[in-house]
């Protein structure tokens, strides 16, 4: 006999977690299996919804307005008109005070480590004081012995981007670390554990302050208690303190992952990490069971409804060999040009076809076969496994995951209730 649940979510990123919680809140029993740890820790921790239109226009001020006009086939259009608002409301509820941005429909512009600004809809509270629309003189602080963030270049670049405030830069040595230890997670740990480190850091920054009302650090201000770290530094410096999101390993990404995993536990979702789905059984219309590899043993899992949220090319939800592009779990159809040399553009930031690879879905978010019919009536897809949008260029990845995750999870659970009523 198989392990049985109402809804089985395959994939543990933002879309899978959102689908699982949305389903659980409808009263379904939900299990989430993921092949690896999620890629949330690689991401900046910002929740982008839509920063640029598919034609590159932007930055977009009001993403909700813009989402309504997206072409047919875009994941937002497929998810339906309320899915984004519903998904964000769920996120706001889960994130609570840790995230900001829900007070307005407008995007915020967040400074990046390279000195650009990026439109985003929800941002960690630690990022808020640094928003580029605040006309406050700013000091950027970097740490010796690190390579990702060079504050002098970032400051000049922000100026070139036209920000409405003065920016200066300083580099200090981080207290109590040796050269080999100069990593984001080590800095965060020291700031969490030792109030003395916070004081010593503030002492090193103070001489560089020339009246600036805010001080920006790369995002290392504590993994466990960033608010407490930020408050200590702000008091010692007499200025507000903010974080600039970084690339991997990303401390805000780790915080978000922890927050969402706590939420999964609170909502009663059973989570199994590190167990890939390696096979499935289906009739013509329905997925019956999937086979999960648990430390080399093949274990069948059954559910009434399935959600595919395995990610895109990065997460492994979409794969390619030299001949074709495929979806490896349920072998759903992935539209792509037959000629591999049409998968990319020659410009590194061109409109790459590969950036849009993913499954096509119907208005129920059910993957479509090559002939346009649904692959399986009880399988839905959410997040980056969906095709039809360049999430990176649009800055829409998190929003699409929330909208489609919410819609897929809730529809899976309501479908289930209807099925039960019919029976």
């Amino acid at each position, binding site marked *: 006999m198989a392990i049985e649940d109402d809804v089985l979510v395959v994939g543990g990123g933002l879309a899978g977690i959102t689908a699982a919680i949305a389903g659980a809140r409808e009263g379904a029993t939900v299990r989430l299996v993921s092949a690896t740890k999620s890629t949330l820790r690689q991401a*900046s921790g910002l929740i982008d919804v839509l920063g640029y239109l598919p034609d590159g226009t932007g930055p977009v001020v009001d993403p909700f307005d813009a989402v309504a006009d997206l072409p047919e086939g875009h994941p937002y259009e497929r998810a339906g008109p309320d899915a984004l608002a519903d998904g964000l409301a769920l996120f706001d509820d889960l994130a609570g005070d840790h995230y900001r941005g829900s007070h307005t429909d407008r995007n915020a*512009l967040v400074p990046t480590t390279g000195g650009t600004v*990026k439109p985003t809809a929800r941002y960690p509270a630690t990022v808020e004081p640094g928003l580029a*629309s605040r006309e406050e003189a700013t000091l950027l602080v970097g740490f010796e012995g690190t390579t990702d963030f060079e504050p002098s270049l970032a400051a000049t670049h922000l100026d070139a981007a*036209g920000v409405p405030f003065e920016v200066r830069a300083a580099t200090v040595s981080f207290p109590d670390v040796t*050269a080999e230890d100069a990593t984001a997670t080590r800095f965060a740990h020291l700031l969490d554990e030792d109030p003395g480190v916070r004081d010593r850091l503030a002492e090193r920054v103070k001489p560089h302050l020339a009246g600036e009302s805010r001080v920006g650090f790369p995002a290392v201000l504590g993994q466990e208690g960033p608010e407490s770290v930020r408050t200590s530094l702000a008091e010692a410096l007499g200025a*507000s303190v903010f974080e600039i999101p970084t690339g991997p390993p990303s401390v805000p990404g780790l915080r978000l992952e922890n927050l969402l995993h706590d939420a999964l536990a609170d909502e009663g979702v059973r989570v199994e990490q590190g167990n890939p789905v390696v096979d499935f059984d289906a009739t013509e219309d329905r997925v019956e069971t999937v086979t999960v590899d648990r430390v080399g043993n093949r274990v069948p899992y059954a559910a009434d409804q399935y959600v595919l949220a395995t990610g895109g090319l*990065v997460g492994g939800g979409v794969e*390619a060999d030299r001949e074709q592009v495929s979806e490896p779990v349920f072998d759903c159809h992935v539209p792509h040009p037959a000629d591999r040399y049409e998968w990319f553009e020659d410009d590194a930031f061109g409109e790459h076809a590969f950036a849009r690879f993913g499954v096509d879905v119907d208005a129920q978010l059910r993957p479509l076969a090559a002939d346009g019919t649904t692959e399986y009536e009880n399988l839905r897809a959410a997040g980056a496994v969906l095709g039809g949008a360049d999430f990176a260029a649009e800055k829409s990845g998190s929003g699409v995951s929330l909208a489609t995750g919410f819609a897929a999870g809730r529809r899976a659970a309501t479908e289930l209730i209807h099925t039960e009523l019919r029976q």
Partner: protein
Amino acid sequence: MASSTSVVVIGGGSTGTGIARDLTMRGLDVTLVERGTLTDGTTGRMHGLLHSGGRYAVSDQKSARECIEENRVLRDIASHCVEETGGLFAKLPDDGEDYFEEKLQGCRDCDIPAEVLSGDEARKLEPFLSEDVEKAIYVPDGAVDPFRLCVANAADAQERGARIETHAEVTDLLVEDDEVVGVEVRHESGPGTHTHGTSGTTEELRADYVVNAAGAWTGEIGAMAGLDVEVRPSKGVMTIMNVRQVDTVVNRCRPKGDADIVVPHETTAILGTTDEEVSDPDDYPEEQWEVDLVIDELAKLLPILREARTIRSFWGVRPLYEPPDVASEDPTDITRDFFLLDHAERDGLDGLTTIVGGKFTTYRMMAETVADHVCEKFGVRASCATADVPLPGSDDFDVLRDYMDEFGLRSPIGRRSVQRLGSRADEVLTTDEPNPVVCECEAVTRAELRDAIDDSGSDLNAVRLRTRASMGNCQGGFCCHRMANELAPDYDEPVAREALDDLYQERWKGQRHALWGQQLSQAMLNHALHATTMNRDGDPARTGEAVAFDAFDGGSPDGD
């Protein structure tokens, strides 16, 4: 601007830098001009094979003898650029028995040490070799880093007083009374080390003699003086794997053919190649069939290659030359020999010699031939010493030292750094500052990058060639921006930004030919990091579009 020198050498590849070194060692005043970075032409686009000569032992024994001779010299003078891998000529059932015997005999005729291994013995040496391999000939092929070797030649020439100008394109040959008296050069960002965004200048460089060592581009240079140099450029693809499937060079033992060699190179293995004549060495198609062919053909020798990860492909253009009366139809029939064309004898134009043809392994010998010729013109009697005097980095090189503690570097980072730097390790790595790793794939530290930046300015592609930073699995996705950060404080932000854009685009160029499997996943991760996290594509500083900052969210009313 005008200046003068004794000899102008055109071309910053192995031949040009080799000539510059040789001539300066003989006391001449030399200026070398290169239109791009050093190795930008064919030198930086080869498979990294240090020939034993075995490859030519049947078809071209003169070349084979030169190869084994120079192979021995380079192991000696360029030890920090050479890895003594050994090489195999492996025979598959389809490959002729007669040819195998001819190859073995040819090696022996040319004084190339050759030993026959059974299929099992060969597989013991290289476990991924196909079960179909019947036997193999073991020869002293090696792997060589062309970037390091070329830069070492240039550095030594510079140390001895030569002027080395990169990003300096020859726009004209100066001809007066049937004599070439110099060159006109356009400096992309002015003379000296390269700085992005600095406006260009032109320079008239007068010289007593000019050497055209522009490789596949010698024809274009010759044409500036109305000369016809019949160079026949031929392209070949090389596909880079993300790991070394072999530690020995593996050749297929059959007569000339496409896709018959795998060369271990640093952390990678390079598959090659194809051979197609092209009309323009700057503009030729880079085609899918070539990539697919080298993978599919070489998978017959090494089946693991069929599913292995490739990180990029690149193409090189061989500067083949044959006297016009030979008229070979097929580029694979054109000799790999080199030719010295004295245009005084050939065309009645004094002051100019062209060196063309040849191959990387014999670059030093070619340089010696040219230097002898130029010295004869000048009546200089100094003899060549380049076969005896080690290159910078290869003198007094004790690889057994424990650099880990000495430079505060973690192993194997220390080991990798020292392998790259050779005897220059002390000079480069000794620093009181923190020395973090900037490129994790290739274990390149800040000190090495700063050393390379001192040498080559803001040109991060030149820094890459000197250090290998951004040449590993991630193809720069995780380190291009870190490398650009190292340009501060010596260079301003607009320079760093442009340098980053150039490097990122160059890294993308080769990855386009590896976009499947794990490398496509990596490409998407890079795209996400640079577009999503950093928003480099939507950067207002790049697009030039003013942003209405006050229209955007400035934070929540109760936020701090």
